[in-house]
């Protein structure tokens, strides 16, 4: 994958060389009632060996962001900006080039993967499919061997290759989906809610598998979740999205433990720390519902639900402002804690 990279990228094989760089990405869906802006100017960087979390609620644009990385967005979407994979813009690639990047360069584990396996094919055949497509020269014995390796990597017995999806539990199906994403040795894995709908114990097993892959093989990962606590546990950095924009970005532990933006604060408090006396009989919520991208208010999109909204928030949409190693988009940061409205 290094053949076509720019000189400066090859020159710095340091961990900070960006594997994925999303620059000012906008994605708008065409609907019957006009444009629906799902992603509104997102910047995001993933380095090799790094896990970057994207947090947010339904409708915040995080899944659109994930699919756009591999140009898998629906045809009704208008996209602008850049998605640089190893320095090359995925959005501007010709079909052949894009096809090579998908699976072999970057792969995606979709949300609801429990239902995306083909029920009438054996697991082994489904794992072999991307290899047949992207590495046509590979002989059958090697493919079988590779399928066994992949199952082993995600902690499953190689005999499972003979199983059909209905013979597997939810956690096992999810592992198969991860194994499939690894089939062609990608450099980047995009995981959209890889543990949603899994039990805590199975979630812990799947997260262990993912983090070993990243740490062990230097793969870069973009992981999307609504659960900030899961991201804080696994990721190096977290990007928090609201209404299609990034409202906070920073080191994972800091974003979770000491969020700057009031919305990150609410997300963080929604998953209480067991044992924290402050959370006993005090579930933390936010009034109101997540915004409808079709009817975004003027000013800060979070202002209608924000406990600290000021009059200025209703008119001006704040941009991301850097604070040391972090950034957040809120005019109230740094102000003394004002009385909530």
């Amino acid at each position: 994958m290094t053949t076509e990279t720019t000189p400066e990228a090859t020159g710095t094989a340091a961990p900070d060389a960006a594997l994925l760089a999303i620059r000012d990405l906008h994605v708008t869906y065409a609907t019957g009632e006009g444009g629906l802006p799902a992603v509104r100017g997102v910047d995001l960087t993933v380095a090799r060996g790094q896990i970057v979390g994207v947090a947010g609620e339904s409708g915040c644009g995080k899944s659109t962001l994930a699919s756009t990385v591999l140009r898998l967005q629906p045809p009704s979407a208008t996209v602008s900006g850049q998605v640089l994979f190893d320095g090359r813009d995925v959005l501007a690639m010709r079909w052949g080039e894009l096809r090579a990047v998908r699976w072999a360069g970057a792969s995606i584990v979709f949300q609801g993967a429990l239902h995306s396996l083909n029920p009438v094919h054996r697991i082994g055949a489904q794992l072999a499919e991307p290899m047949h497509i992207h590495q046509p020269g590979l002989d059958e014995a090697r493919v079988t061997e590779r399928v066994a390796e992949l199952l082993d990597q995600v902690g499953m017995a190689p005999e499972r290759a003979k199983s059909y999806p209905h013979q597997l539990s939810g956690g096992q199906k999810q592992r198969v989906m991860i194994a499939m994403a690894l089939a062609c040795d990608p450099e980047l894995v995009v995981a959209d809610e890889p543990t949603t709908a899994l039990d805590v114990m199975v979630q812990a097993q799947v997260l262990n598998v993912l983090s070993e892959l990243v740490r062990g093989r230097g793969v870069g990962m973009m992981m999307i979740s609504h659960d900030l606590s899961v991201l804080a546990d696994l990721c190096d950095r977290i990007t928090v999205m609201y209404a299609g924009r990034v409202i906070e970005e920073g080191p994972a532990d800091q974003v979770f433990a000491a969020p700057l933006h009031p919305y990150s604060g609410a997300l963080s408090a929604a998953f209480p720390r067991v044992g924290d006396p402050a959370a006993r009989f005090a579930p933390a919520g936010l009034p109101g519902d997540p915004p409808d991208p079709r009817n975004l208010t003027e000013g800060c999109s979070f202002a209608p639900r924000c406990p600290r909204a000021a009059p200025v928030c209703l008119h001006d949409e704040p941009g991301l402002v850097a604070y040391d190693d972090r950034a957040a988009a809120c005019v109230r940061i740094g102000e003394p804690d004002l009385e909530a409205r």
Partner: protein
Amino acid sequence: MTPEPSTGPSNGASKGHSAELSTSGLRVQFATRGGRVARALDGADLVLRAGEVVALVGESGSGKTTLARSLVGLTAPAAGEIRWEGKALERSGRGLKRLRRQVQLVLQDPSGALNPRHTVYESVAEGLRIHKLVSGSGRTEAELVAQALSSAGLRPPEALFLRYPHELSGGQRQRVLIAGALAVSPKLLIADEPVSSLDASIRGEILALLLKLREELGLGVLVVTHDLGLAWNIADRIAVMYLGRIVETGPTEEVLTSPQHPYTQALLSVIPEVERLEPVVLTGEIPDPTRIPPGCRFHPRCPALASGEASGVADACRGTALPILSGDPGGHRCSCHLVSSREVVSS
């Protein structure tokens, strides 16, 4: 709707049998296609009273939903007993109807549980009509529906009367389901995963609503969940289930800050927020309920047995079945040979 005088978190418990739902040795079995019998619920004792919030936690396949459903008579038990207000539950149509007037189930998945062709008003009024509660109340049906909606935090209620489920947000749908349950003024609410399909920021609002209903109406709530953080947020008591049995039960603070059962300890150690514990990731998944392991049902996955910590009681773990934990609401109990052996030694 006749709200009871506000009862605090604890004093609702001192009313004897007045509003108490209990099970003893409850078993539910399902026949599988292969002819084997799945023991989905394999002996459970649980007591639920007005004015308290109890969390029933476990992974999928632990039997928690089966227990919740059998509490309102939706699943017929194979053995054991359900008692309501001190009397054994009659499994006749009338007996169940009487029970469901007092004990309401709120289903998980708010988008699937509401009839898409019914307006909010019709959904909430359904219970009032089934139980014929309007005529004796001295109020109109619309007033009762409005009251239930506003108790569930949907204000102004009239604005929602003619809305259909698809016009509502996830949080609003969950509130409509709760309003439907509240309309018949029950004493107990059984909520199966009330927030699992909701967004993070909505979750806290719904949990706060359950606590408010406990405070203001003296309602008892059984929350069925896989989420220990949720239990920490709102539950007075907690019961941890594994493969059809309750394996540990007690006050939430005690169970979650000093868990005794190796399964509870492992569950707590893997939730991302708990950093003070070394993660114990159990291998495999809950076994098939048609093949419950002999001895302690947790022993094939038990980290204490695997590490040798439980070597003194290993034979018992593998061969001696454990008794069903008492459902008595007081005290912290756990069903584990290792823990019992320590208690014998220390006393």
